């Protein structure tokens, strides 16, 4: 096929609507002490201590900032050990046994609207940073750094476009808490003095859109609107969403803030609300357990630090005839494949997919051009592959392999089933 591919076909018939929604309170949680980008952690608790929800367990020191680590359940500290993280690496964790009492720490408490309305950018940024909020869409970039920008911001864009096929966690959260999302958006606009706020959602999500528009109407004192964006992959990619909403083409590698745009994921913005209104860190998470190798695909709400194994068991486990199974943390296009079933759920864990392994047979490239036509950053995957095979550094640079966002489309569309995205990664490494 020679065409510009913008849709990912659901050929595995993976359900995207969930009748089954379960609330799972874990027996114990494993809280990672070294969240991404921070490597040294100072802990404040010892084995045997009693902790409450929202209590600081330690502070993780990064190169430019520090992020506190919070307890997501109330109970007792059981141990310090190591546990597998979604990226596949092991990390230090603190294990807390849940007493199921959900005692709140004394730092958690409601702020009045007047108090919040009077806050300066710095005060807001400090609270958000103190609650260790990071981008919940996947990039895990600290939110307070984005919100602390000194660039003039014209528009705050809430990215409600789930980046990948088969993922729904963000939609479920938006449906559950639309009010809080808009309030969070108001806070973010207040922080960066933005005159305009936009919530971007795929045009195909009719029910959600109707609900959000109704909600947006209650904020008519500010310029807040809901924008329907075209349903294509990778629309959830920040830069594609920004382009759809504002028409501005933010070059890959530059900060959107330079172009007057502050983009925050929809779950993150609800986190902003919780942090400011209740001084509460993010403690729970919607996690989709899905895929064609899963018996009963289910949407779970659970605590951060719970184990995926627990949720897998609750979804009935793998189908008996599944054959080789590929476990993917994240989406089918950009997620991380791991050989483990027992993984710690973090702030950014939106899903676990168990896919039947396909093992496609590669054929010689027929130069159909689909990969070139479809690449969202307009580079030429097939030429990059050839340059990489030849070991031609100069050509790799000319072909701008570093622009690649590893969206996976080139591998997906390839007529000859060549794993081009892998060549892109190799090409990038080669240039390093």
């Amino acid at each position, binding site marked *: *096929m*020679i*065409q510009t*591919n913008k849709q*990912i*076909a659901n*050929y*595995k018939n993976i359900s995207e609507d969930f009748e089954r929604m379960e609330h799972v309170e874990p027996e114990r949680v494993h809280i990672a002490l070294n969240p991404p980008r921070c490597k040294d952690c100072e802990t404040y608790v010892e084995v045997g201590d009693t902790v409450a929800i929202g209590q600081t367990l330690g502070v993780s020191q990064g190169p430019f900032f520090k992020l506190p680590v919070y307890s997501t359940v109330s109970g007792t500290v059981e141990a310090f050990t190591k546990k597998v993280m979604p990226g596949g690496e092991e990390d230090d964790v603190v294990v807390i046994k849940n007493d199921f009492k959900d005692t709140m720490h004394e730092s958690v408490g409601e702020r009045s609207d007047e108090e919040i309305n009077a806050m300066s950018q710095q005060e807001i940024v400090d609270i958000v940073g103190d609650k260790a909020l990071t981008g919940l869409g996947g990039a895990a970039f600290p939110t307070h750094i984005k919100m602390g920008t000194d660039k003039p911001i014209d528009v705050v864009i809430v990215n409600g476009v789930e980046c990948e*096929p088969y993922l729904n966690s963000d939609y479920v959260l938006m449906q559950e808490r639309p009010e809080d999302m808009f309030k969070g958006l108001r806070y973010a606009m207040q922080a960066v003095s933005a005159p305009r706020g936009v919530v971007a959602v795929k045009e195909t999500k009719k029910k959600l859109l109707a609900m959000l528009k109704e909600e947006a109407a209650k904020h008519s004192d500010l310029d807040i609107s809901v924008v329907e964006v075209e349903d294509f992959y990778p629309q959830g990619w920040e830069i594609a969403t920004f382009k759809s909403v504002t028409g501005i083409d933010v070059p890959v590698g530059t900060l959107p803030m330079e172009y007057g745009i502050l983009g925050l994921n929809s779950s993150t913005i609800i986190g902003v609300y919780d942090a400011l209104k209740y001084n509460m860190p993010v403690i729970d998470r919607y996690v989709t357990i899905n895929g064609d190798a899963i018996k009963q695909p289910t949407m779970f709400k659970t605590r951060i630090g719970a184990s995926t194994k627990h949720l897998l068991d609750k979804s009935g486990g*793998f189908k008996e005839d*599944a*054959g*080789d*199974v*590929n476990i*993917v943390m994240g989406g*089918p*296009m*950009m*997620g*991380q*494949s*791991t*050989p*483990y*079933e027992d993984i710690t759920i973090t702030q950014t864990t939106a899903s676990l*997919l168990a*896919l039947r*392994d*396909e093992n*496609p047979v590669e*054929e*010689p*490239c*027929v*130069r*159909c*051009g*689909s990969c*070139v036509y479809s*690449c969202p950053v*307009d*580079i*030429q995957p097939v*030429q990059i592959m050839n*340059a990489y095979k030849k070991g031609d550094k100069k*050509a790799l640079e*000319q072909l701008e392999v570093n622009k690649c966002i*590893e969206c*996976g*489309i080139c*591998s*997906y*569309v*390839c*007529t000859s*089933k060549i794993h081009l*995205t*892998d060549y892109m*990664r190799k090409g990038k490494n080669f240039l390093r």
Partner: protein
Amino acid sequence: MNLVQKTAPYLRKPTARVSRFMGDVSVALLPLVVFAIYRHGLSAVWILLAAVLSMVLTEYVYNQIIDMLNGEKFKLKNKSFTISNMSIVTSGLIYGLTLSDVIPLQVVIIGGVVGTFLAKLIFGGLGQNIFNPAAFARVFVALSFGGAIAYEAYVDADAGATVLGVLANDLFDSSVTEYYSYWTMFSGIGMPGSLGETSALLIIVGGLYLFLRKSFDIFVPLTVIGTVALLSGTIALFHEDLGLWFPYTMVFSGGIMYAAVFMATDPITIPITRPGRVYFAFGVGALTLLIRIFGQLPEGVVFAIVFMNMFTPAIDYPKWTTNKFTLRSILIFAAIVIVTAAIATAGVHYAL
């Protein structure tokens, strides 16, 4: 059950398959095959069989020899040779349909063998070749056995001279339209010419099929045909002896439609980006017309394709090709189109 670890993405588009892609071209050619057999009977069957088999067998034998040279044992089923992706069968059909119905079978076979070997195999097989094997084989036949298939050879009672045969004697001879009505030229019914090239109607049907199946890039045939129409139209506009019949005849004769739909679209031998493909197709259209007018070679279009194939790597040169039409590239391209049209028009005016 085992857990496996892979790298993203984990999905592969089910409809993206080499066999579907190549097979579709064969399907699109079927109406032409049927038409050829209906018109020429058994001789068409033999010629097409000879074309396909000579190409398939050459590829098979070549792979066997290479494997044996690499010290492997002889097996009837060769591991490197595959017919299932339809690529070589399709090339054979495309080649066979460009031939005239009176061509001797041994010429068909020699052309098929040489074309497959020189244009495809020595470059390393599928995906590596620079020249379109079908076009190359056809050019080889024209150059080596020109006499055997000369168009004059079949000015016979019921067929008459081909359009290009007439125009080769006198470009401005509007009497071609008296021999052949517009409908005859379009439908191919009663038109002399090679096996598959005469019926524009069936070619368009095949092209539509490929378009709907997304198995070729419609920009390529549209550009080739558009270029021929535009250039010949401009020439006609500035020449008192020529009328609307001229661009019409140019487009619907001599295999341009056929080559535009089935040969210039072969992705392996044309540039990889969409702008690159448009430039390539323009080159094919312009060269064909120039060869026809000034060179009087009836097979102009296959020469043009093989010639443009050589420029594919240059058009693909990463420094100046991206998959985007920029304002600058459009302006440069437009300038080239205008200059070409001017040269062709002036050439016809002064040289002929």
